[in-house]
């Protein structure tokens, strides 16, 4: 446990010093929140809606850091450590791949949690955003979305040949999901045809579920997104640990 905490402390410090995640996982979601807040204030999501536009957006805003960590930060840091032969150095120590992957995974989970708390700290007092449903349901949906997205990143990082390849894969996953799965642009404002296409992104499923649980809406058919996300998490994590490359 001491190993894990020492590595976590150091890797966390290094990540903050690097600033990328601070910008993309902490500042960017906050900036989007503030812009939406200025535009929509406390207005309802639509005429006669029992919840505000801001409350409707809260789940999606929480997904920005998940997206940044899972599809950019995590795969890139693991691939970079491989390319710089840092993993090779770890390989001739008593460290295991699970320890290293676990530490990096935790760093990005902490970013996601910090981002959510930061968003809540602003959205709740300033725009009166309140969860309309039970909080544990929302937190469950959030955790599942986070774990499934981070596990994709873990797999890309563990299997990519080098950081350039990891970068390309990360960009291909990150930008479409960030723009089209409802993180920044609400799914509701997209044309119907487009909504059908973006429903295929796994992250869209997670965001929809987070939104429904946060607003306390009927979570009809919640079983499908939950099943998809659990499956993705299991498969990607399994592949990452099984086929982890040190070099």
């Amino acid at each position, binding site marked *: 446990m*001491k*190993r894990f905490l*020492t*590595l976590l402390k*150091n890797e966390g*410090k*290094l990540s903050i*010093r*690097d600033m990328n995640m601070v910008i993309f996982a902490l500042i960017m979601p906050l900036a989007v929140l503030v812009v939406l807040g200025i535009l929509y204030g406390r207005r309802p999501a639509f005429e006669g809606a029992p919840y505000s536009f801001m409350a409707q957006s809260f789940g999606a805003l929480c997904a920005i850091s998940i997206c940044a960590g899972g599809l950019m930060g995590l795969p890139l840091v693991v691939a970079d*450590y491989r390319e*710089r*032969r*840092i993993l*090779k*150095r*770890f*390989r*001739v*120590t*008593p*460290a*295991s791949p699970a320890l290293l992957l676990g530490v990096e995974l935790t760093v990005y989970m902490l970013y996601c949690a910090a981002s959510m708390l930061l968003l809540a700290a602003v959205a709740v007092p300033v725009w009166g955003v309140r969860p309309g449903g039970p909080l544990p349901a929302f937190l469950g949906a959030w955790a599942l979305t986070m774990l499934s997205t981070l596990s994709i990143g873990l797999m890309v990082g563990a299997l990519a040949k080098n950081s350039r390849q990891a970068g390309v894969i990360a960009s291909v996953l990150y930008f479409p999901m960030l723009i089209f799965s409802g993180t920044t642009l609400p799914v509701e404002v997209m044309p119907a045809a487009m909504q059908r296409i973006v429903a295929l992104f796994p992250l869209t499923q997670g965001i929809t579920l987070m939104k429904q649980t946060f607003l306390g809406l009927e979570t009809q058919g919640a079983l499908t997104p939950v099943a998809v996300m659990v499956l993705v998490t299991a498969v990607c994590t399994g592949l990452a640990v099984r086929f982890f490359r*040190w*070099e």
Partner: protein
Amino acid sequence: MENAIEVRGMTKRYDGQAVVNGLHLTVRRGTVFGLLGANSAGKSTSIEFMLGTRKAESGTVRLLGQDPGRNRRALMERIGVQFQEGDYQQEIRVEELCEETACLYRNHADWRALLRRFGLGEKERSAVRSLSGGQRQRLFIVLALIPQPELVFLDELTTGLDARARREIWQLLASLRDQGLTILLTSHFMDEVEALCDEICILRRGNAVFTGTVEEAKAHCGCTDFEDAYLMLSEDEKGENA
């Protein structure tokens, strides 16, 4: 007492070309062993086979009496390694790199004391990338010693160090050897090999062409200067330094 390293018949080919060909090595405990040869003679590759980070086609390796392919984690508690091109996280500081390394071992050394012994006491809070080449080299030797190893691998020991720093490192390593540490090193400096190594093995294109002491190498070649003997042994028939 068992030997620190035993390599028997280690062979690996790439595209039909032998990188290491039937290598036999025995390194006694508490000695310094020099693995020598020109660039690409197979030194680093041999070390990787010994550590089990690469798989040989055939042959067996015993480190401290154990198979490095099994029980890797238990065995690595007792072994320190400095790779030729050690790398580190972009923004990491000296103290963080030492702490991160130390936490992996159950029984690690006081790394602050080690840094001081290697003349890096003032550099604890510096970024590793801001160190000079020689300081970084010394830092990587410190990292290899943090596990309080019984056996240490030092690939290209003093590359990048100035004359005085090299002498200091030799003295430190000799005193560690006298306390029972076994050292396997590679080096391109024959004065260093002569000063430190109890035994050497010279590789040429993956073949061990000489194993014995420095004095035996000189006698074998009829040279008074060890570097002459080394060049004679490590060069190809054509006279190219392979």
